[in-house]
């Protein structure tokens, strides 16, 4: 394989070289603030740093550009002490002014940029913008001195400051953003156009600088940042090669065309390991659930029926036969690494007899449900929707629930249909952004008007309220207790859906790639990686 | 044949002409266009033909290929829509008929085609071929009478009655032509238009069909319009002959008169060009060789259509004024300004250099690049 740049390595075997990594998709742009997609984030993580980072290999927040932080007792004022001597790729200094410039930029988005589709993470986590049309969690930022920034919030939330570890909220060079008109987002036709900053001039503080995006060859090239404030970067070049097809990625690795790739098919792990590749399994930080929508079928509003479904599906076997190594049956809606997890919830072990009798009790012996599953998509929590559907529907048939299979492409009607409550049963899931239970629970039940139409049951509203209350609890222990209660209730009294599994995604690397730590948040950093 | 001639010549017949055609024109538009089609010109296939056919006679139409004979025959039967002019059949103006009335009229005028194979549907048995026309006109009145009629027809055209179950491909060329003739006869027509009925057949078989046509005429009192390019055949069976050249009629006469004394230069040339299987005659013959080829009917010469090739062409009139068909001798018409002069030898032939003729491409090769918007990608 003619990797010409590889020739420049000085023989130490540790420093230098080009690493080519197979990515499943193209990054949308290079300004992560406007992104939600993993491919953009993967690239961004190499170029940018946030105030907060995550401890490698975990979802635990830890300092990054901020050395430490404190909050006022009311939990609304946060003081960040910044690292010194950090420079942006354009040579300008990183300091408190830059931090505030970034916060104010986010808060100050205008026009099309305010759209959910553009500044989604901001809207999700901080709410509105400086124009005040909607309330915002963010209040202000003050640069106390060059190395101290103070952030004020309008309310307490459990997710702050962890949320600052999201790649969307990384620190970008104010100078460069100004120069390349970073906020100039416009809606055009049925899409948005982004400024040249986001497309060609991303400027951060991270270990790699933006090289080029060769659309003709579908590669993104990053080059080493010699002025990186952290540990010396070992690779000269980091290339992301976009290979959408999973099998094609595997074969590219086998053929020696790439050094590693993301999301190997679980079925290949074993084979890849045997072939001497390093299959790095990420801790599972996700949940797959069998969604039950109560809207159209009244029987589904009966807890017994939902419990019958839970008893009737053989999740152990599903996990064993269809899911990757390390996958677990999910007992509740958050992984066990998240605060608020409790083993002390009602369990639904496979018991078809019990399921049948529950159905009989509920008088729902003759149920026919529309069971939706997405075609053409694999999510980290759902490696092969078809096979999972096959297993679940076969199980349901055994307890006498007939299913109509409905399948649509993920973006071609599946999400739409689920959101419009067209499905009675469906496969869905979630990968956590950071380690707070709110990130999971609020996503599912935070509003009564949700994918499960929990609002149709009397407890829908109170569940939503209790989640909100827990989030607003400044005391950590209390908060944890509240969440545990919620989980118990959800599993014992509500069962709005059936959690199925947590399955670990993985990435594969050639054996000579060292230093990459798999992260439950897919937050892998290549700055510390060496080749050879 | 002789009796037919006599019968036709009998002055006592009240309305002696069965068909009369007045100034019949068929112009095929040539369409071209960038987006929508425009008519950029016409093929003047038939360009003003008058003629009348008497009851019971055989009228022969000859001319070189492409001169419009077939088109004329079809326009006469309204199988091609004439551009102008009219054809009166037994007192009925055919051009006024539409739809069902025209369809019913078709019973009385039938057609025999040149290629016996392609004019028979390969998927139809002889029986179904013959019955089809009868059925269309309500002539099949029950299995028995139809069966009888079919046997009559077959014996009339000299085919075995076992033929009914067979399919066209099981017959020889001559036999197929007989089937074609029987099909025409099945509806008891008055007029039969035979378009080159024998030119696709072997010489020996030709004679059989020619004889058959003659016999049938006698038997059923038919009137024929026989179209052919072979003057010998036409002369053999026709009472009267019309000679066509490039969409127009140039000469019309009783068939003996035409041979004895052709008046139009074209007819003269044509007659002299036909080889005769007799070395004595061949050796003695003076040939009038025409220069060049038939001009394209899409772009016919001005004036007399024949002037470009005419050895008797004169400086005046020929290339400016189109001669009308006029009676030169009793019952003998010609369309030539100088017919009398030529006849009397006052004008002598001279040599003609062949003119370079832009050949009509569309006629001889098939190019399937779109010619109209109905053909676009």
């Amino acid at each position, binding site marked *: 394989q003619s990797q010409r740049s590889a020739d420049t390595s000085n023989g130490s075997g540790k420093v230098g070289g080009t690493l080519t990594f197979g990515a499943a998709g193209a990054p949308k742009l290079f300004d992560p603030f406007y992104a939600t997609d993993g491919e953009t984030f993967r690239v961004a993580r190499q170029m940018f740093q946030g105030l907060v980072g995550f401890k490698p290999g975990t979802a635990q927040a830890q300092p990054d550009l901020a050395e430490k932080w404190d909050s006022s007792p009311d939990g609304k004022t946060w003081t960040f002490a910044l690292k010194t001597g950090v420079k942006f790729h354009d040579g300008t200094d990183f300091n408190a002014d830059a931090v505030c410039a970034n916060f104010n930029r986010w808060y100050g988005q205008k026009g099309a940029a305010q759209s959910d589709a553009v500044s989604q993470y901001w809207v999700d986590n901080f709410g509105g913008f400086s124009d005040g049309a909607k309330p915002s969690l963010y209040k202000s930022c003050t640069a106390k001195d060059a190395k101290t920034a103070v952030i004020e919030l309008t309310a307490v939330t459990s997710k702050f400051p962890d949320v600052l570890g999201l790649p969307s909220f990384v620190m970008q060079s104010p100078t460069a953003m100004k120069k390349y008109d970073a906020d100039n987002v416009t809606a055009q036709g049925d899409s948005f156009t982004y400024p040249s900053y986001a497309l060609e001039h991303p400027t951060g503080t991270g270990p790699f600088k933006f090289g080029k995006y060769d659309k003709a060859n579908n590669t993104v090239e990053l080059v080493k940042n010699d002025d990186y404030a952290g540990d010396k970067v070992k690779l000269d070049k980091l290339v992301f090669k976009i290979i959408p097809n*999973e*099998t094609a990625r595997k*074969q590219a690795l086998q053929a020696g065309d790439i050094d590693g790739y993301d999301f190997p*098919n*679980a*079925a*290949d*792990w074993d*084979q890849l390991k045997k072939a001497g590749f390093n299959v790095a399994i990420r801790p599972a930080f996700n949940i797959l659930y069998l969604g039950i929508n109560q809207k159209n079928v009244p029987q589904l509003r009966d807890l017994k029926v939902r419990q019958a479904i839970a008893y009737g599906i053989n999740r152990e076997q599903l996990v*064993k*036969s*269809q*899911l*990757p*190594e*390390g996958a677990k049956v999910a007992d509740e809606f958050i992984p066990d690494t998240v605060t608020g997890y409790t083993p002390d919830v009602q369990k639904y072990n496979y018991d078809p007899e019990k399921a049948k009798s529950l159905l009989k009790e509920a008088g729902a012996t003759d149920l026919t449900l529309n069971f939706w*599953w997405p*075609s*053409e998509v694999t999510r980290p929590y759902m490696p*092969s929707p*078809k*096979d999972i559907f*096959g*297993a679940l529907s*076969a199980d349901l048939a055994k307890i006498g629930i007939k299913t109509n299979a*409905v*399948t*649509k*492409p993920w973006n071609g*009607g599946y999400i739409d249909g689920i959101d419009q409550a067209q499905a009675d049963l469906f496969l869905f899931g979630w990968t956590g952004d950071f380690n707070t239970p709110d990130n999971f629970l609020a996503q599912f039940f935070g509003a009564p008007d949700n994918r499960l139409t929990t609002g149709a049951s009397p407890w829908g509203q109170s569940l939503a309220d209790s989640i909100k209350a827990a989030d607003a609890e400044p005391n950590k222990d209390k908060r944890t207790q509240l969440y545990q209660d919620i989980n118990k209730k959800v599993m014992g009294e509500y069962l709005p859906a059936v959690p199925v599994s947590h399955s670990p995604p993985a990435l594969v690397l050639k054996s000579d790639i060292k230093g990459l730590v798999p992260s439950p948040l897919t937050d892998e950093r290549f700055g510390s990686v060496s080749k050879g | 044949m002789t009796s037919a001639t006599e019968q036709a010549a009998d002055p006592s017949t009240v309305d002696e002409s069965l068909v009369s055609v007045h100034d019949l024109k068929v112009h095929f538009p040539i369409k071209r266009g960038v987006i929508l089609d425009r008519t950029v010109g016409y093929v003047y296939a038939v360009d003003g033909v008058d003629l009348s056919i008497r009851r019971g006679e055989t009228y022969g139409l000859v001319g070189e290929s492409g001169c419009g004979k077939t088109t004329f025959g079809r326009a006469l039967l309204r*199988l091609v829509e004439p551009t102008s002019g009219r054809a009166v059949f037994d007192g009925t103006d055919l051009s006024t008929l539409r739809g069902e009335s025209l369809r019913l009229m*078709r019973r009385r*005028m*039938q*057609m025999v*085609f040149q*290629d016996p*194979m*392609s*004019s*028979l*549907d*390969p*998927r139809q048995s002889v029986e179904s071929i013959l019955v*089809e*026309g009868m059925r*269309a006109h309500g002539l099949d009145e029950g299995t028995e009478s139809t069966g009888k009629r079919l046997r009559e027809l077959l014996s009339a055209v000299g085919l075995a009655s076992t033929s009914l179950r067979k*399919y066209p*491909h099981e017959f020889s060329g001559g036999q197929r032509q007989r089937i*074609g003739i029987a*099909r025409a006869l099945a*509806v008891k027509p008055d007029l039969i238009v035979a378009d080159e009925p024998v030119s696709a057949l072997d010489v020996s078989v030709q004679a059989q069909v020619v004889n058959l046509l003659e016999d049938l005429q006698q038997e059923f009192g038919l009137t024929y319009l026989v179209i052919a390019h072979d003057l010998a055949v036409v002369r053999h069976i026709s009472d009267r002959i019309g000679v066509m050249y490039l969409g127009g009629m140039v000469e019309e006469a009783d068939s003996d008169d035409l041979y004895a004394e052709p008046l139009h230069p074209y007819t003269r040339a044509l007659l002299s060009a036909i080889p005769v299987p007799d070395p004595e005659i061949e050796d003695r013959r003076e040939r009038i060789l025409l220069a060049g080829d038939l001009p394209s009917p899409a772009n016919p010469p001005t004036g007399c259509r024949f002037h470009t090739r005419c050895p008797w062409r004169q400086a005046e009139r020929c290339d400016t004024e189109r001669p009308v068909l006029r009676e030169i001798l009793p019952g003998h018409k010609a369309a030539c300004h100088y017919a009398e002069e030529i006849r009397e030898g006052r004008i002598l032939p001279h040599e003609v250099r062949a003119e370079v003729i832009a050949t009509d491409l569309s006629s001889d090769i*098939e190019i*399937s*690049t*779109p010619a109209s*918007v*109905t053909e*676009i*990608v």
Partner: protein
Amino acid sequence: MALGATKKDRIDALAKSSVDDSGVSLAASAWRRLRRNPVFLVGLGITLLFVLVAAISPLIAPHDPSARDLIDQVVKARNEIPPAQPGHPLGGDLQGRDFFSRLLVGSQQTLMVGVLATLFGLTGGLVLGTLAGAIGGWVDSLVMRIVDVMLSIPSLLLAFSIGALFAHPNQFTVIIAVATVQIPIFARLLRGSMLAQRGSDHVLAARSLGVKPGQIVFRHMVPNSLGPVIVQSTLVLATSIIDAAALSFLGLGNPNDAIPEWGQMLGTSQEVLDSHPALSFWPAACIIIVALGFTLMGESLRDALDPKNRR
């Protein structure tokens, strides 16, 4: 071979082979030559075998093709699928279903895809082509405009596009996608032959006999235009099976694989081609052989119907 390069010229050239009936009857002479043509006989043999298997497969299949009997032996994480074992000569598939039974029963769906796609394409084409060819005038222009727009997209691409246009892909939408691209071809083909027929002497003869127009169309023009249509249909049987497989591969096929179909079996097993080649090999081999059977028949039919080869 007609001059001009567009797809429609090709179609028109094929359409013309319906006229020129000089000499012996089309069908008879074609059959005479076909009977001795080894290529045709091989094609016919394959096809008959395939049809037979499809007909009796439910009877001879040892297991229910959708029952996940062997699911216990499936371990995705270790890439294990049920191996060949007594009662399961080819083992199981990724969902623990008996592969041999699926392969056998798959012939039914595959045949159905081919036949229905051909039938739909044919019917659509027949309707449009007959309308255009028999009525002519503006109906002809309109129909042909639509047909031409459809023909200006490469056909497989059109099938993909149509496949993508269904919100809810299933076996039926696959058939529709594959069939739709055939409609313009059949329509143009039929119209071409009908036009050729319309100018032919025997139709003229029928007109001059005073046969009613409707009868002329249905008794003379349509039957005599069918030769090229039959040829095309045979070839379409093959292409629609292959095209359906391509649709499956692109994820535009029937995602529900409870009822087996070869194209879909092949499409879904591509990803484990290297670890479980048999899962791809068998359906691929079946598709290739069946498509080959139809193609051999179609091509030799085409040759046989070609007037040039008649002697």
